[in-house]
């Protein structure tokens, strides 16, 4: 599992301030979402595709693997729109299904957007460490530390939940719990696992919060940082590269 998520080399994208990277990518994504221009959408898609496949530092084999779910959602979102979307220039129809020029174009547009979202997220995910992202958000973007640490603590507790799921199923075995077959069994199983695990998680979260406050964590107080994050030259490079390529995507689509 861990092996899958180790790059074969760390590219310059790894050194970009994670919070800056996050904000820039988020802004791009907003533009993708609200854009309705077909060519612009395509150009952006190419841009993000290049970003993933050339600068994420992962081998093509792994990248193709990561892309599979993205491609599936491309196909499914595009296909639904093509088959059921509205339009007047009809190419083909069969019962309720009809494919028109408009719906086909809309389907492709929708698909491009879905692919772009997938690629942007993938690049970000592959080249950033979550803890550092939160540290950078606190230091460069003034995210209140209470949110950042709540996230960090919750994420830390995730493996505990998984382990707990394991222990829970062990304990159910040992206590001799048997589930009936069929729907009733499924429901019972769901209840036996979810309710205690939720109850546990809530209590644990509360205890962790108490322990954190006992260690003098205060909402809104000033603090120093173990991992200092700053802006460096590579951040300027990143912004310039992004802005230039984005602008060319825009210009090329208008002409």
């Amino acid at each position, binding site marked *: 599992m861990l092996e899958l998520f180790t790059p074969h080399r760390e590219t310059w994208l790894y050194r970009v301030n994670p919070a800056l990277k996050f904000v820039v*990518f*988020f802004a791009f994504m907003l533009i993708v*979402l609200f854009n309705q221009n077909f060519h612009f959408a395509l150009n952006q898609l190419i841009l993000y595709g290049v970003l993933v496949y050339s600068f994420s530092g992962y081998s093509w084999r792994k990248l193709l693997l990561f892309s599979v779910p993205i491609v599936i959602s491309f196909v499914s979102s595009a296909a639904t729109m093509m088959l*059921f979307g509205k339009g007047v220039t009809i190419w083909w129809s069969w019962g309720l299904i009809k494919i028109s020029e408009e719906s086909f174009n809309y389907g492709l547009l929708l698909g491009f957007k879905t692919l772009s979202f997938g690629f942007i997220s993938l690049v970000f995910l592959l080249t950033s460490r979550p803890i550092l992202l939160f540290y950078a958000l606190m230091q460069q973007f003034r995210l209140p530390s209470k*949110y950042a640490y*709540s996230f960090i603590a919750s994420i830390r507790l995730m493996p505990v939940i998984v382990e707990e799921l394991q222990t829970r199923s062990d304990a159910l075995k040992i206590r001799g719990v048997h589930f009936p077959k069929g729907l009733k069994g499924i429901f019972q199983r769901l209840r036996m696992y979810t*309710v205690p695990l939720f109850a546990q998680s809530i209590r644990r979260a509360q205890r962790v919060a108490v322990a954190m*406050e006992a260690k003098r964590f205060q*909402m809104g107080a000033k603090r120093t940082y173990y991992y200092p994050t700053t802006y460096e030259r590579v951040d300027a490079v990143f912004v310039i590269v992004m802005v230039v390529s984005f602008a060319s995507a825009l210009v090329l689509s208008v002409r």
Partner: protein
Amino acid sequence: MKRLKFSDLLITIMIGVVFGITMKFWDDLYTVVKPMLPIARQLLYGMWFMVGPFAFLLIRKPGVALLASIAAASLSAFIGGGFTVLIYGFVQGLAAELLFASFRYKKFGIVVAGLAGVASCFAGFFLDLFYGYANLESWALFVKYGLRVVSAFLFTGVFAYLIVRALEATGVTNLIRPVSKEEYSLLDN
């Protein structure tokens, strides 16, 4: 109304994170089902709206629905659901939050929870308009979002409510909800 303590905040975000992971797996399943069963998939869509109302029913403090929704969406976005999820999470959570606020955060029943889900559903529809998901023939549009409303009510109203009831039985809710005046007056006995 009581302000959020740090422990409320952490619990809310924790719930969001747990839901976020579940939603990611849900999403994978959904992606596979999508092209095959257009109707069934709409009926399952309500899952997306569950987290905010669930957190509110549990903790009963202002801001919780929005926060949980954002937390779930962030996590989902991080583990590969894509950044759009973030915007959807924010807007849907905001809708649920506003609905609870309009009842002055004083109603915790099935109906209000269900309505919060429906509100999230409309907020989602608004974003779909921009994304392009709503460019459907009008009958398809009607079926799609009609089913979605039903599912929203079912998941947030009925399911979220029932899970919270089961959790109340474990007593965990006693320690995280605002304590009522009567509890204090019992101290004098």
